[in-house]
């Protein structure tokens, strides 16, 4: 396979490998473009724990200062905290320095607009235009601002989450919790949060040095150490976060990873049981969500992949809950962003209110099997392959083409096919109540795609 560029410039920000493509010059120029886009004002700057974060942060400061912005340095911070601080203060935007679940040699800038939402694709396009045209609003010395430090990045965030929860109910239970922060932004903030909820807290991988002890993506296969620790400590629950603490995976009291798809499913069930309203999730999120919403007679709105797409649909539809199947719980009453802290709080409250164990809560959910698959497909033929797939399968079931192709079959099975933004592959996600069908669907489509590519 030809080696692709290790720089990805797209609507979700810029991402690259430090020492190769993510140079301080590039970071500075993007920060200038962003500062020119939002105009002079306070811009929150936070980062995850990656070793390259300090270099990237200085480059971001330089770019922002040069265009008259006032950087608010919150240091190492969970991404949801950055978004919520942007929303609850007079900041006009934020730059989150994090490559999220990517391996340690990567870093990235994610751009946040006024109100604390990631830039949508139209805003991101405008930012890219400014970048490419080098139309930077450089200011002269008399308009320069200084960097301001904010030593409490989670203040507004924790206040909002605690306000949303029934803290009293959780406090009474004194849960024993193990968390795995992947040495990321959750390392120091997660115990602080859980202690506020009266938990007895045991941490693993909680040194915020950015040396990731495991793959940062909180998938079942990456969190075996957490599973073992929960079991050994006889804890009530285990929580795993990614490096920027926006995604959450849960381990039950028996030390079994319940699967990151169920984080959002549990949250949907809890929230709808208290307040009915629309649910917004992306196309690839588990169908368990639809089943739960149907029980409560609530509509489910499906969006394109991308956190900002879910967030904007949540606002437009006045959703009460939603998120992404990758462990991204989003509670609009707190803030429409993926928030592992909101997710942890909600699950603990479920345990407290129902007096049940995690495994009991999971056993009450409908059972589905999800299978993911990738097929090599060069970027040149990806478009034509998608077009022929769409034409061929229009009659198979309910078809959705807002992002690739999703077909939902009458038996509740579904498959979602889309070209990757980052690699020359097609991503296939299938889910079914039947394990056999969940394996069969992507296999069948993979063969078909291979013949097209």
């Amino acid at each position: 396979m030809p080696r692709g560029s290790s720089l990805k410039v797209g609507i979700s920000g810029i991402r690259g490998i430090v020492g190769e493509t993510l140079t301080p010059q590039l970071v500075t120029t993007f920060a200038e473009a962003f500062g020119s886009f939002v105009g002079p004002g306070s811009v929150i700057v936070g980062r995850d724990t990656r070793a390259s974060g300090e270099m990237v942060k200085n480059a971001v400061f330089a770019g922002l200062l040069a265009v008259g912005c006032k950087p608010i340095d919150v240091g190492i911070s969970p991404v949801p905290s950055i978004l919520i601080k942007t929303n609850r203060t007079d900041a006009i935007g934020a730059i989150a320095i994090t490559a999220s679940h990517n391996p340690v040699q990567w870093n990235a800038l994610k751009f946040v607009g006024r109100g604390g939402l990631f830039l949508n694709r139209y805003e991101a396009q405008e930012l890219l235009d400014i970048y490419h045209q080098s139309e930077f609003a450089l200011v002269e010395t008399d308009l320069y601002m200084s960097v301001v430090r904010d030593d409490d990045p989670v203040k507004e965030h924790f206040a909002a989450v605690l306000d949303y929860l029934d803290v009293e109910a959780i406090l009474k239970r004194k849960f024993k919790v193990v968390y795995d922060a992947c040495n990321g932004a959750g390392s120091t903030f997660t115990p602080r949060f859980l202690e506020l909820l009266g938990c007895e807290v045991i941490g693993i991988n909680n040194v915020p040095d950015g040396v990731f002890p495991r793959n940062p993506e909180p998938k079942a296969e990456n969190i075996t150490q957490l599973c073992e620790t929960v079991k050994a400590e006889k804890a009530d629950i285990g929580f795993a976060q990614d490096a920027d603490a926006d995604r959450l995976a849960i381990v039950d009291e028996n030390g079994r990873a319940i699967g990151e798809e169920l984080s959002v499913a549990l949250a949907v069930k809890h929230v709808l049981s208290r307040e009915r309203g629309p649910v917004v999730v992306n196309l690839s999120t588990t169908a368990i969500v639809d089943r739960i919403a149907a029980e409560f007679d609530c509509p489910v709105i499906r969006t394109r992949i991308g956190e900002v797409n879910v967030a904007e649909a949540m606002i437009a539809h006045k959703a009460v809950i939603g998120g992404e199947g990758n462990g991204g719980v989003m509670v609009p009453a707190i803030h429409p962003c993926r928030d592992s802290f909101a997710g942890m709080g909600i699950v603990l409250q479920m345990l407290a209110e129902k007096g049940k164990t995690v495994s009991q809560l999971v056993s009450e959910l409908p059972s589905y099997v999800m299978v993911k698959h990738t097929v090599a497909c060069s970027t040149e033929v990806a478009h034509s392959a998608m077009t022929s797939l769409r034409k061929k399968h229009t009659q198979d079931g309910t078809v959705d083409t807002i992002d690739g192709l999703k077909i939902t079959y009458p038996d509740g099975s579904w498959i979602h096919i889309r070209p990757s933004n980052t690699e020359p592959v097609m991503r296939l996600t299938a889910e079914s109540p039947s394990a056999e069908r969940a394996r069969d669907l992507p296999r069948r489509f993979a063969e078909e795609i291979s013949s097209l590519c």
Partner: protein
Amino acid sequence: MNGRDLKQLRIGPSGVRGIVGQTLTPELITDFACAFGTYVQSGLVVVGRDTRASGEMVKSSVLAGLVSTGCTVVDLGICPTPIVQFMVRELSAAGAIAISAGHNDARWNALGFINFRGTYLNEYEGEGVLDIYHSGEFAKRPWDALGRVEQKTDYLPIYFSRLCSFIDTKAVREAHFKVIIDPCNGAGACVVDILCECLGCQLIPINNEPTGIFPHDPEPRPRNARQIASIVKPVQADIGFLLSSDVGRVSIVTDTGETVSEECTFPLVLEHFLNRKKGPVVTNLSTTKMVDDIALRYDCPLVKSQVGHFHTIHTMLGEDAVIAGEGSGTVAVPEFQPAFDAFLSMGLILEMMAARRKKISELLRELPRYHIIKEKIYCPPEKVHNAIDEVRQYYRNEKPDLTDGVRVDWSDGWLHVRASTTEPLIRVIAESNHKRIARERADRAVSIISRVI
């Protein structure tokens, strides 16, 4: 086009100087920091800045660039340039970047490149950095080989204890001088308090806040010394000192309130220092004849260098001189450190006053005095060569020295016409026993140049 409207950027062997918001962009600074970091082979680099509002932007760019090339950085924060230079040797660093535009007004900023000896880079070293800059081949380090940034705050006592052991502190302390110092809210602000405390002087500070808001141009010369002059007599001070924003230069105000030309600083220190130690003296081609007279009186050889900090310093080192200085108010004593250092100049002047038990006004009266006229003419870069050549043509029968522009010597004085390396202008300096003659010579040179522009 008016010369003042030109976009200004000056790139020389020992640094880069430009106007913030126009030419001195964060990308440019980052590139130069990367080039310097590559040049010093990812070694330890000391960074300090003066108080200018743009200093934080420049520093952020410098840190990002240095760290990306694997340099570990000791960040001294706001720090006078001579102390940055001192700390290079103290920490056995590979070099330093001093962020200060010295005497330039607040719109400017600059990077000064300093080698492992604590001196500005010479032409050959500077060539090395520029070649790397122009090739763009920077050392790009991966995430696990990036440099770190260490903040250092405890360095002032180290510097001042060394300075005080170089000066006859006991004699100065016994004199109980009352001293006015105006650091122009630059890097010397508050640091001068330590100097006075060490030397047992009562300090009356003016503009002693490190805000970077310059109450007047940060250039030590009589017209900027009026604030000091207005209070010398009312407070019965023994002497007043006016500093540049980087504490490289100093000019004097006497006990009688006379604002003394910055030309007198070096001759005064020289007159005293050659009593302590005899040896070769270095100055530049634009400096007062007072220096010639004093060197002759002490029977010390005098060598004249091209104009420019690094020329003077490197000539001093090459000639094994005991002292060097310039008409702009700088003095360097290599036995202490090979750098222009206004703290040392102030210390030596106070030592002289204590040793000779005379008022500063009396000491100055004992020096040979000449009339010096300094003019500057804005000149677009494309016309500089013609302008200088026109002057050379005019004086072709007077055996002009063409080392640096045109210098003509007569029995009763001299004239020096040269292009500034830091600004788009031509400097005309005439000195004579008779004010009228100096004035006539300067006016004539100005009119010759004006014809060409």
